[in-house]
């Protein structure tokens, strides 16, 4: 009899402790996968981007679309993507004149006259989603990581806000979101691409200057683009394994 009571108490005690844990676990199961895209397998993709300098007209659609889609703060110090205007007088590629008023969000006011002896072009910038990312390397807790499908992401619930990754990015692609005090950056619109959509910036580019590509999909047009164009990455000397390729990139761009 006493053994029965002991058994009952022990079982009840265990149940009492385990119920909240089980409830929490069930909640987790019910919430579905983090990416919430049931048909999407990370192992089947390897994302990259190609940018055609010749096609960019500096309209700023991409910057506006990105800020809206990804809830990026509107202040001019926070960008997941931005556009720079280069003005390179003949033979002085070491000292280009560069500006990016409000990151190109409002487009570019007329500044240079045609025929002033210099070349002008726009350079859209975005996280290069490097395959050996210096930002991922330095994160002290692993809050930023390269996903198996080749996208550099941040776990905001884990980020300490130490800003080491911001220092480590050679391209200036990271910022601290003042609202969350955690780091933020381009995700290649991960919530969209895992559902078969393209990024907000590619979607809204009127000239098709940007194209998201899946290097693991043999039918993706990115393969043809890379085969038929002379491409370059930014700061190749950094050896970051950048996956954002530029066509028509001038040597003055940094």
């Amino acid at each position, binding site marked *: 009899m006493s053994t029965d009571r002991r058994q009952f108490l022990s079982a009840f005690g265990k149940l009492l402790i385990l119920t909240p844990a089980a409830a929490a676990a069930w909640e987790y199961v019910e919430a579905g996968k983090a990416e919430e895209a049931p048909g999407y397998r990370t192992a089947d993709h390897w994302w990259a981007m190609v940018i055609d300098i010749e096609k960019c007209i500096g309209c700023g659609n991409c910057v506006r679309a990105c800020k809206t889609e990804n809830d990026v703060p509107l*202040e*001019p*110090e*926070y*960008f997941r993507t*931005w556009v*720079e205007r280069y003005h390179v007088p003949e033979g002085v590629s070491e*000292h*280009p004149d*560069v*500006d*990016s008023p*409000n*990151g190109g969000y409002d487009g570019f006011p007329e500044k240079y006259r045609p025929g002033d002896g210099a070349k002008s072009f726009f350079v859209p*910038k975005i996280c290069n989603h490097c395959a050996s990312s*210096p930002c*991922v*390397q*330095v*994160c*002290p*807790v*692993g809050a930023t990581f390269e996903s198996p499908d080749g996208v550099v992401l941040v776990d905001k619930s*884990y*980020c*300490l*806000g*130490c*800003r*080491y990754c*911001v*220092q*480590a*990015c*050679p*391209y*200036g*692609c*990271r*910022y*601290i979101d003042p609202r*969350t*005090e*955690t780091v933020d950056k381009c995700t290649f619109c991960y919530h969209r691409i895992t559902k078969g959509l393209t990024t907000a910036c590619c979607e809204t580019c009127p000239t098709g200057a940007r194209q998201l590509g899946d290097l693991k999909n043999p039918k993706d047009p990115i393969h043809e683009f890379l085969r038929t164009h002379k491409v370059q990455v930014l700061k190749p000397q*950094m050896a970051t394994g950048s996956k954002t390729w530029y066509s028509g990139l001038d040597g003055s761009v*940094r």
Partner: protein
Amino acid sequence: MHESLTSLVQGFMYPNEVELQWSVLVVLYPYLTGLVAGAFILASLERVFRVEAVKPTYRLALLTALAFLIVAPLPLQLHLGHPERSLEMYLTPHTSSAMAMFGFVYLWYLMAVLVLEIWLDYRADIVTTARASKGLKRQLYRAMALWSDDLSEESRRLDDKVGYILTIIGIPSAFLLHGYVGFIFGSIKANPWWSTPLMPIVFLFSAIVSGIALVLLMYMATCVAKRVPIDMRCVDTIAKYLFYAFIIDFTLEGIDLLHRMYEADESFKSLDFMVKTKLFVSQILLQVIFGGLVPILLLAITQVVKLSEQARKAIYAVCGALTLVGILAMRWNVVIGGQLFSKSFLGYTTYKMDFATKEGLLPAILLMILPFVILAVLVKLLPPWQEAETE
């Protein structure tokens, strides 16, 4: 917001670069850890290399190192966007991150080296104090002695032996602590101002220089405060070490500078301009001239010219103070300077230091005062000059 921040920029910066990421608090972090490492290395000289002359500073140096080490992580903690998550660095460290190891190096140094060494050195004194006192004080000292009550010759010999081994472990640990802090900066390839293999060793020697200067000043100040004569053999020896360490430090920094100027790579023009403009006061004036050349020259004079005691004391005090300012300027130039230029090498931003904000000047000043408050408490609990008094 728009106008105010963009007006800080000269030339072109990537938009996300306009705001500085690391503030004056991150300047304090290498400064404080440097003082710790330097003070400890000076203390070790007496213990391991048996430099009897610096013995009067042995305990003071250890307590100073401890006081500063306790404060060292606070500026980082204040600086974090989410300080409540900092424990994750211990629980889930990212092994490829240079920063992730800080917690472990710090804890190792704090607990395994400093606290243990101080405890072993003081244990017999603590037991004696516990025996001689009553009530709460007795309980406190008994607890501090971890309830040991052994004053036998053998136990003291054991304290000494273990302490000696700890000091031997402590020296490479002190080198590790600060060399490592240098590596945090030196390993960032994206930043040419930081990225140099010399960074850890420059940090290490500047740490030794600043720690020696601090202990020299602290020793002289406590002597004045306690109205006891300054042991000239002791300060002369410390000053000699300061001079040697300074020459190595200055040479290393000179090599770095020369190398940059001669190679003149893609970043050079941008950095050169920055040093001559935005960093002119802190780099050229404070770090190189008043915090480097002047104290080295003054110390050199004390080494070759026979000066009166009074003159030497004055020179040591001035040199100590200038050195501390110079090394602080060096930390500033590394941390803040490394963020003033664009990684596009096409422009510069400005650091506007706030005053009474989380990362402003006020908390920085308070954090610089705090180690001295802690040291005062430590000195009260564990008087470092007992031997002098009993003599």
